[in-house]
């Protein structure tokens, strides 16, 4: 148990540090503007709509905490944290007075759904294909796959998504262009299947890019592991190929890839944001974009802070499950 503490504790503290640094960065950024951002926002908002004076007051309070310049920097910082810990990210400016956290809540299931599906599928595909390609590098189909993935990997997520949209939404008109689903939200086959239908293309675009990365990683790792002593010995002893691939190769390549997963969640999330924008998929990435178009600074700030905390936490959870995979960490 002591050792688990020596493993868990550092990671927990790193999690806290990451959140600390991320939140501090978001604290500093809006205050870099020469003019008071609160005044700016309030004047912009009041020019767009007339508001209930009490609503304005609560808005002003929120803004002061979030990016106001009142009081010493230290006081500002504390107030900022106080707001965040309460989960209060202020009201959205474009959808006033809906709280930002509510908008995030609405979009979150879509994003998380997309994210987890992508990670799951691209991981399995990437690892299986990559390991096979690393184990049987001379086979033709492995070499073809290699060439294909090498060409896909460097392409930015945006371009991949755009190509898919161009091909399947405009040219071949197969998939719907907008939205996450059609019809009323309910537990019915038609609604659920429309979710699948709408998310097929966005998911594919994400999965293609992520699988390419996993494939390349898995292939490289496999090439190293098959040169290791224990794989060589197992082969000398005549163990069957599938047994070697499963228990001797993949099991061992999983370890560095698991460490890698925590670090790459941020990248996949960025890809998700882009994909949502291209496909108008109603997740928090899309809300971020909307916030951008409508100059809704609260929303942008709120989503950024939220995603930093969310991803740091996801990375922590992944890291904490590593001992399950590696007996060298589990038992000293």
């Amino acid at each position, binding site marked *: 148990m002591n050792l688990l503490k020596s493993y868990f504790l550092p990671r927990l503290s790193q999690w806290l*540090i990451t959140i600390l640094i991320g939140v501090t960065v978001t604290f500093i950024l809006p205050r870099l503007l020469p003019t008071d951002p609160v005044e700016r926002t309030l004047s912009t908002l009041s020019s767009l709509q007339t508001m209930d004076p009490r609503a304005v007051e609560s808005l002003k309070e929120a803004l002061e905490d979030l990016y106001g310049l009142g009081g010493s920097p230290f006081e500002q910082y504390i107030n900022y944290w106080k707001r965040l810990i309460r989960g209060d990210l202020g009201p959205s400016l474009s959808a006033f007075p809906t709280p930002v956290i509510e908008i995030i809540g609405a979009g979150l299931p879509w994003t998380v759904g997309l994210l987890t599906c992508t990670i799951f599928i691209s991981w399995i595909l990437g690892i299986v294909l990559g390991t096979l390609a690393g184990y049987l590098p001379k086979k033709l189909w492995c070499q073809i796959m290699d060439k294909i993935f090498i060409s896909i990997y460097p392409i930015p997520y945006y371009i991949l998504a755009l190509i898919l949209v161009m091909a399947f939404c405009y040219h071949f008109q197969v998939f719907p262009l907008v939205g996450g689903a059609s019809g009323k939200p309910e537990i019915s086959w038609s609604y659920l299947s429309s979710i699948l239908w709408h998310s097929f293309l966005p998911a594919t675009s994400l999965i293609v890019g992520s699988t390419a990365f996993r494939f390349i990683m898995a292939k490289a790792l496999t090439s190293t592991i*098959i040169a290791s002593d224990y794989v060589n010995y197992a082969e000398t002893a005549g163990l069957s190929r599938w047994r070697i691939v499963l228990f001797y190769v993949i099991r061992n390549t999983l370890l560095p890839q698991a460490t890698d997963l925590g670090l790459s969640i941020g990248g996949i999330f960025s890809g998700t944001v882009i994909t949502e924008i291209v496909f108008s998929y109603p997740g928090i990435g899309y809300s971020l974009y909307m916030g951008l178009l409508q*100059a809704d600074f609260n929303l942008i700030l709120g989503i950024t802070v939220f995603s930093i905390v969310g991803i740091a936490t996801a990375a922590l959870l992944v890291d904490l499950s590593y001992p399950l995979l590696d007996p060298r960490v589990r038992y000293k």
Partner: protein
Amino acid sequence: MKIIKDLFKYHLSFRFGAIILLLIFLLATLSFFSPYEAAKRRVVPKNEAPSFDHIFGTTSLGQDVFWILTFAIRNTLIIAGLAVLIGRSIAVILGSFSGYVGGTTDRILQSIVDSFIVIPRLPLLILISFVLKGELNFLHLALILGFLDIAWPSKRYRSQILSLREQEFTYTAVFSGMNTFKIILKEHFPFFIPYLLADAVSGFLWAIGIEITLAVLGLCDLTTPTIGTMIYWGNYYQALLMQRLWVLAAPVITSIFIVVGFYLISTSLSEYLDPRTRLKRLGTRE
């Protein structure tokens, strides 16, 4: 240099990547001979499909797609190049410093670096660009991109330094009384520089990808032609809906060539430099 000659002769992917990049650089230099100025609009008839006069067609802003593309390539490459230069330089200093100094300083620095690796960069970038709205020109963009791509590279450089430190020849040098700085310069640098080059090339990938993404979201200076802004304007004028594919196809296809070219170069370079893969390539199984 011998490395480049060797790679070109014997390594297929390097040859491929090099040829692609050569073409791209050619196009970029063509921008200096463009009959139209980059910033001018409505210099040619709008929305024309590819023809003899305008091989890639024209845009909705009245610009020749081909010539704008040459400017776009040049600008995108410059932005990415600056970003890589700035970013990797800082990463080298940070990574080497952390690696050589070691101890608590190293641990603290690594903790900060790890935080930046986890933090998703795109939302942060959107936030930054929004805050700096209007002030985001070329140079600022390159600076920000550079700063945001320090974490991972500095970690890689640090581990290179760490492994160099543990090598036999380092101990020999230390025991023979060689001054630390001299050791770093004379013994370690020759190993480090090629690695740095191969790694720097891969920095282009992220920088270009992010430049495109940011421009498409409308976050940078939209008057300067870059690959990203070409796509932005294409979308703005509904190129997809209006079946004016050439406006988008040109930058999209070009961007694919650019990144694939850079990627092939960087992987073949690092494969060449890695003694293990060299040995393995000589005798693979089955």
